[in-house]
């Protein structure tokens, strides 16, 4: 076993130094009836590296991945371009195998990259500051709701029906044990209606663009939130921020998002990376890690994890959250991605997305689909089909196309609706092939 380097002589000498004759003696404090003989568990046999790779490859090849199906499925996780630089940086052992940077003298590389990440996310969202990242977008949204409760002491969370259904489910799970009520705001025409917000609102949660791809009217959301005296929380797609006015321009209090589109593989949904930004007045309530710039005894600049007294290892049950990891490696992927693409590259990604989306909407409607909503969209749109969307999806998979997300399981009355995402990685010929295949399926 290559991972354990001990020779027989090593073991013998080490046991002699310890003053015992067998390794078993070291386990003598475990009651005998709870101890297992080595090798007695019912486990699969060990595989050498060559057989391991073969076995894992076989398992992986049973799946229809984005190399086998042209991906028009989005709904929060996107098949976007990932520059080769991202993988090159992430595979460096100094990053990949590092622990949390609690020892700043040995962690300046990671700490500086997190400082840059916080700067980039703040800028992208137009916010004062951002933290070092969260588990994923869904838990970041739930944490934002709980943080809002801490800010204003109120206990009702208003969430738009056009927020990702899974995010809303995670929100429900988080709110249940701490007695926060969750109320749904309807989105009848694909756009949120804020009229049901009452004076008990702790927070109003909106997605931008929303789950249907529709660009929500954040002015209306802000005005309704302010009237109720609630905390304004926006869950925003980071790529759209290259072209849309950021939530910070609409006075958002907290902005969260899923960072996966910025250099992270879809990976069957994990690991992802949650983004979390807020106004500076709330910095001491923010969950998770934050890196700050300071100096050493000689005045040399350096970076440390800061505002540590919010965190669980110091504050224990009074901490702002129980979180004790961020998604550092995935945040590093986002950092490399944003620094490589920069202003010009990110704008090109967003613009190509808009062109592709617009073109796809045209050719798919020409092939027999109808656009469900009239509002402006970014990157994604809902089409209505003459038959059940799941049946269409199934048939298109046989033609090598992952057509989108059938919305029936998530929304009443939308059995024939399909959510279609068209990223910058799709080509005109792929979009044409989708339209042609749809035409054949509907014929």
């Amino acid at each position, binding site marked *: 076993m290559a991972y354990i380097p001990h020779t027989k002589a090593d073991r013998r000498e080490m046991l002699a130094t310890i003053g015992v004759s067998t390794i078993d003696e070291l386990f003598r404090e475990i009651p005998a009836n709870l101890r297992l003989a080595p090798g007695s568990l019912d486990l699969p046999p060990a595989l050498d590296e060559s057989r391991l790779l073969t076995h894992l490859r076989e*398992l992986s090849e049973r799946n229809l991945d984005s190399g086998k199906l042209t991906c028009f499925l989005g709904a929060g996780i996107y098949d976007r371009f990932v520059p080769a630089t991202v993988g090159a940086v992430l595979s460096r052992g100094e990053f990949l195998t590092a622990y949390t940077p609690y020892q700043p003298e040995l962690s300046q590389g990671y700490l500086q*990259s997190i400082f840059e990440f916080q700067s980039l996310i703040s800028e992208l969202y*137009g916010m004062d500051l951002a933290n070092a990242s969260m588990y994923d977008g869904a838990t970041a949204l739930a944490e934002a709701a709980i943080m809002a409760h801490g800010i204003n002491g109120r206990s009702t969370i208003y969430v738009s029906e056009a927020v990702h259904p899974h995010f809303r489910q*995670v929100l429900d799970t988080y709110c249940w044990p701490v007695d926060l009520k969750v109320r749904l705001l309807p989105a009848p025409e694909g756009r949120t209606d804020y009229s049901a917000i009452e004076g008990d609102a702790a927070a109003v949660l909106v997605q931008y663009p929303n789950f249907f791809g529709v660009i929500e009217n954040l002015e209306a959301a802000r005005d309704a939130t302010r009237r109720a005296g609630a905390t304004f929380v926006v869950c925003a797609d980071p790529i759209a921020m290259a072209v849309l006015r950021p939530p910070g321009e609409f006075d958002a209090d907290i902005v969260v998002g899923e960072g996966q589109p910025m250099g992270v593989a879809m990976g069957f949904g994990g690991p992802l990376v949650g983004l979390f930004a807020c106004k500076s007045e709330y910095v001491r309530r923010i969950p998770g890690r934050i890196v700050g710039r300071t100096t050493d005894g000689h005045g040399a600049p350096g970076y440390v994890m800061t505002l540590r007294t919010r965190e669980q290892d110091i504050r224990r049950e009074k901490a702002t959250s129980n979180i004790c990891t961020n998604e550092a490696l995935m945040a590093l992927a986002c950092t490399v991605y944003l620094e490589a693409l920069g202003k010009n590259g990110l704008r090109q990604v967003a613009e190509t997305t808009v062109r592709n989306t*617009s073109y796809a909407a045209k050719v798919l409607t020409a092939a027999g689909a109808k656009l469900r909503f009239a509002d402006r969209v970014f990157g994604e749109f809902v089409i209505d089909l003459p038959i059940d969307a799941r049946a269409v999806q199934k048939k298109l998979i046989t033609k090598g196309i992952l057509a989108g997300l059938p919305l029936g399981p998530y929304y009443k009355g939308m059995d024939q609706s399909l959510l279609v995402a068209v990223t910058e990685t799709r080509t005109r010929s792929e979009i044409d092939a989708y339209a042609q295949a749809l035409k054949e399926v509907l014929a």
Partner: protein
Amino acid sequence: MIQTPKLVKRPDLIFDLSREGRVGANVPVADTPEVDLTTELGELRKELHLPEVGELDVLRHFTALSHVNYGIETGFYPLGSCTMKYNPRINERTAGLAGFAGLHPMQPADTVPGALELLMRVQEILCELSGFEYVTLQPLAGAHGELTCLMLIRAYHESRGEGASRNVILVPDSAHGTNPASAARCGYQVRSIPTDSAGNTDLDALAKGLDDSVAGLMLTNPSTLGLFEPNIAKICEMVHAAGAQVFCDGANMNAMVGTTRPGDHGFDCMHLNLHKTFSTPHGGGGPGCGAIGVKAHLEPFLPVPVVRRGVSQSVELDEHRPHSIGRVSAYYGQFLMEVRAYTYLLAYGKEYMSDISRHAVLNANYVMARLKDVLPAAFDRPCMHECVLTAEHYKKEHGVRALDISKRLIDYGFHPPTNYFPLIVHEAIMIEPTETETKQTLDAFCDALIAICGEAVAHPHLLHQAPTSQIVGRLDETAAVKNLDVRWRPSVMPPKVEAGK
């Protein structure tokens, strides 16, 4: 022995390298018809202050940053409580396979049979190793797994009509901070249970603390003192007799892999840190990966979706579970980390699995034995996978603290061990070598610590000043809080639009 100071320059901030017009990636070029963006999107964003650098600049920037960062592949990482073992490179290769990395989490289940099979097999292996009947891979980190277990406990009591009356969680004073923090996040009050003079849970205090307001006990076994709790079966009986549940904090599972199973100890549920025990990389502080195991009575409450074997042995997703606590993360947990953990588990297999705990415990006891004359153990007992030593006498007699000793280790080329944890040991130095380190490495590390302890007596200023071998010395953390500076700002910030009131 002592490294010469590195001639490494602090890397510039990327923003300082930026020049108008550069781009560092060949981004996809649209071949669809042009559109008018304002027509498509409405009012557009005006300013976007992202760096503009070339592709080579990006790589040089991060390579420079990597040179001032320490990882397991750089050197020994004796951080107690963190299990910094080797992260096998084959795991990176399997996790990168297109058939895993290129899957969308919302594509139909019948297009991902290999992924579901892998999840199921990881669950099955973890069930066997932990002694629990069900495992879910949904939680995204250890603390997330703790929180999920507490939610299951809450749902269990609610199902028995005791949800409102049982509102206290017992937590030993040696516990990780995440335990009380997770309890609070799950709406519970926290009651602390002391450790006795032998380093075990104080049974009298536990008996007194157990009343019908208690929902559960969170117990780390082996404890954060690196000691196996010999009364574990009795403790679980006492808690159950009081109508409460026992959660095992699995942070220290590395001491038990293939040797003993928490499910057999009497625990009702536990979390497993796949990023510790099963070698998925820490990545500088995440992704974590926090599977949980439960006994059958907690199964109805598991988060959705539940991955299970159907009648024909094929793996299916069960979303319709009326008693479930709901969804705790957006999709199926940290899938590509599960791929890594599965790869690791199969590399050991039935034949070698127990070698993990046996060598982890051997290495820790060896370090403890080699250091006993300079840094005595907090408790004179065999340790498990880590040892907790105390530097209290250096503080009293020479004004040298555990932190000073640790910082001096950096000048000797080693990452420091954990300090000041657990909180109940004065001047704690907590060392977890893991099974993947050679005797030579442990000897070099112990030699360095012995030399440093000599310096602590003869030249304490060397320790107070340490480290001097890095691009920064000890940083002013108070100033960092006082003059909070958490982002770069462009010299020309976009005008902030006045908010509607």
